[in-house]
């Protein structure tokens, strides 16, 4: 079997453009031909800085961003132009966890209402939904009586666990995690990541894990893709990409994140300076080339 046949999700030459602002403005191309694939039960880490287009990839897969061209295949089926009805059916297979646990839960619905929403949408009865909600809460280590309470009674980490429970509710095969821990404190972040790992082991769900933090992605992913200005600049095994990258941008990204060890950090800083030096030299050479 080739790698293509194994994959659950395949994105090929994906272009996304947003309309430009103003009269007759040029559309802004955010994704410029993205290729990636996610295999069943795998975590693919997607790292990039703000404006790189990493969130847009997730939204395009979920049908929330305007795809200009290219293909997104889920389980062999082309889903770029799925009609609204098919989209709703796809919800059974593809779910999402958003970055901000404070705005991704409706503040006026109880946790129980939020969690039973996808279940009811898939045609469960109210009673079935209620018992299922209790199970879900247990699976994300929240007390069962949380169902009757409102989001504001919970901390950020707890809310994010509710969001995870919502994504798990209808047993999807792929969850798009868009910066799921970047709004959380360090120690809380760790518990949420451990929970995601545990759930993946138990359910075999595949994760597209989008983050700006290379260290988090390294701990979570089997493979890592690095996105820079709408293009994937490096794609490979997690340990290779996150410890010995070949692309200069990835090198810079890796070395720029400070480590909590003064001696090591000093070494890193020196290395980063070297990489920058090299890039500047290359740019200067390219400039001289162009000038000639």
């Amino acid at each position, binding site marked *: 079997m080739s790698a293509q046949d194994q994959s659950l999700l395949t994105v090929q030459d994906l272009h996304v453009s947003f309309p430009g602002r103003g009269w007759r403005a040029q559309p802004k191309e955010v994704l410029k031909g993205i290729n990636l694939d996610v295999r069943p039960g795998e975590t693919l880490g997607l790292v990039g800085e703000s404006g790189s287009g990493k969130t847009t990839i997730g939204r395009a897969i979920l049908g929330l961003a305007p795809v200009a061209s290219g293909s997104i295949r889920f389980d062999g089926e082309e889903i770029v132009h799925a009609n609204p009805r098919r989209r709703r059916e796809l919800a059974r297979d593809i779910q999402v966890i958003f970055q901000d646990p404070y705005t991704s839960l409706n503040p006026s619905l109880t946790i129980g209402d939020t969690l039973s929403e996808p279940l009811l949408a898939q045609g469960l009865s109210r009673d079935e939904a209620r018992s299922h909600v209790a199970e879900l809460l247990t699976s994300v280590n929240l007390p069962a009586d949380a169902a009757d309470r409102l989001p504001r009674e919970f901390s950020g980490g707890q809310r994010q666990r509710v969001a995870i429970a919502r994504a798990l509710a209808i047993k999807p095969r792929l969850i798009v995690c868009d910066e799921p821990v970047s709004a959380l*404190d360090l120690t809380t972040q760790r518990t949420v990541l451990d929970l995601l790992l545990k759930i993946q082991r138990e359910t075999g769900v595949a994760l597209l894990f989008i983050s700006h933090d290379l260290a988090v992605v390294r701990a979570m992913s089997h493979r890592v893709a690095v996105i820079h200005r709408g293009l994937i600049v490096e794609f490979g095994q997690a340990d290779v990409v996150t410890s010995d990258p070949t692309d200069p941008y990835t090198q810079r990204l890796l070395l720029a994140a400070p480590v909590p060890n003064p001696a090591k950090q000093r070494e890193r800083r020196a290395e980063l300076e070297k990489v920058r030096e090299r890039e500047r030299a290359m740019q200067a050479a390219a400039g001289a080339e162009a000038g000639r």
Partner: protein
Amino acid sequence: MTQLTPADVSSPNESAAPASAPPRSGVRAPLRNPLGMISIILLALVVLPAIFAPFLAPQSPELAELGRAFEGPQPGHLFGFDSAGRDVLSRIVFGARYTLGGAALALGVALVLGVPTGLLAGYYGKWFDSLSTWATNLIMSLPAMVVLLAARAILGPTVWVLMVIMGVLVAPSFFRLTRGIVANVRGELYVDAARVSGLPDWRIIGRHVLIVVRAPIIIQVALVAGVAIGLQAGLEFLGISSGSMPTWGAMLNEAFQNIQRAPMLLLWPGLALGITSSCLVLLAAALRDVLEDRGAEPVGASAVKAAVAPVSMAPDAPGRAGLLSVRDLKVAYTLPGGGDKEIVHGIDLDIAPGEVLGLVGESGSGKTQTAFAILGILPEGGRISAGSITINGQEVRGMPDAARRGLRGDVVAYVPQEPMSNLDPSFTIGSQLIEPIRYKLGLSRKDARAKAIDLLRLVEIADPERTMDLHPHEISGGMAQRVLIAGAMSCDPALLIADEPTTALDVTVQAEVLELLRKLQRDRGLGVLLVTHNLGVVADLCDTVAVMQHGVIVERGTVTDVFDHPQDPYTLKLMGAVLDGSETREAWHAPLEVAK
């Protein structure tokens, strides 16, 4: 209300959301508000008799006994008789039916027209939005009174028809309200999440959107009802109605014609109108308090801020560092219901000239409050409840505001977390730098501009002259942070307080800003208090570190000591949560039974 406190649900390793949970609002919520209660009771006193008018009124409102015209109040006829000898009380009670009924009709029409169109326009946008907004603007540009007068001339003097037209005229207020709120909610992540959950649009609108629109519409209804009653009475008073119905406005009209003979006749319909309208407005205000300001804490008395306890410690106590020294600092907030909540429980900090101290902690640890207390910019309701802060050996606690202002900028400068929201979008970078320089240093405009350009060069901005003329939206976040650092350096301070200066930035930009801070610190011997949650940033920049948890400092020392040999359990836990250099996962292998 049986509700668990947030503390009950939080697991030990997570800090619960600090917001105190107010009781959930229900139908009875307005009753707990005294103003709301009073207005509801008064409105009931008006509405209920109107409904049961045939049983309550002494006689038919049309029964005229000409012989008793203008007779005063008497048993059985409490308000007396009008010019045609009709019982005033009966006419008031029956009049409420037409007056309130008319207002209700107008409201109903306005709601039916305004709310669904507002929902559709806000949720789907596009051509329907443009079209309906255009129609709304058209209606709003019509003068209501003139339209009503014209309608009366064409369609005849029927109250109900006029009220329907008035409903159309006030519908735009509901349309605009609904459209605005819905368009906002449309962008919320939880609406996206619902779409991804596979919910059809009508269910999303029903569950997530309507619930947000509900409260503002209820408030608007109460307000518009008052306006509708007033407008209707105005029309009747001008005599623009059939005159056959006993409405309050018509009664006013009739009483006004006989104002010389029986001035008391004006009183009763006037009172009825006044009480009803003001009750509706008060009810609207009460509803707004109850439905909209949920969770918002009323601001405590601002007088607390001025109340500073006398300074107890001598500023030149031995063992205190020269640049900044904090001893036993306590910060407390006045709770809305009275009482205090202490959030910083007596901490000590010392920074020598040229030293960089990292204050590390997670959200809610009190690190930012400590920085604010040192700067003297604690938010409303907060105050230093005990302790001493010296900057350059000067005690700043209890210092007059003017002296304090002098200290800020000259000696202490501040770099905030969100660079973009700390620049005013409507002014150029140049004017935002020049203004404080002119004020603080008393330079001419030309000298201040030269100084600002020097500062931008100092923070390594490539083309300072061009940058001066840019607006904040034209520069990147990293550049904005450089501009703020430039501003902080303008008066050559000795101490820089930076509150999460790189948290909002990308890592590659963060590295550059840290490099800049390091250079400034080295070249100018700047002392820095760096407030951050990022242990890597501390390792990169700081000499010493203080770890803060729940308002106390649990561990302090040189960065090398604390990071290499953490002693406190909390520091150990923080270091343990760091993911840098952690093991990667074992290689992926195809699952044995692939789902399906």
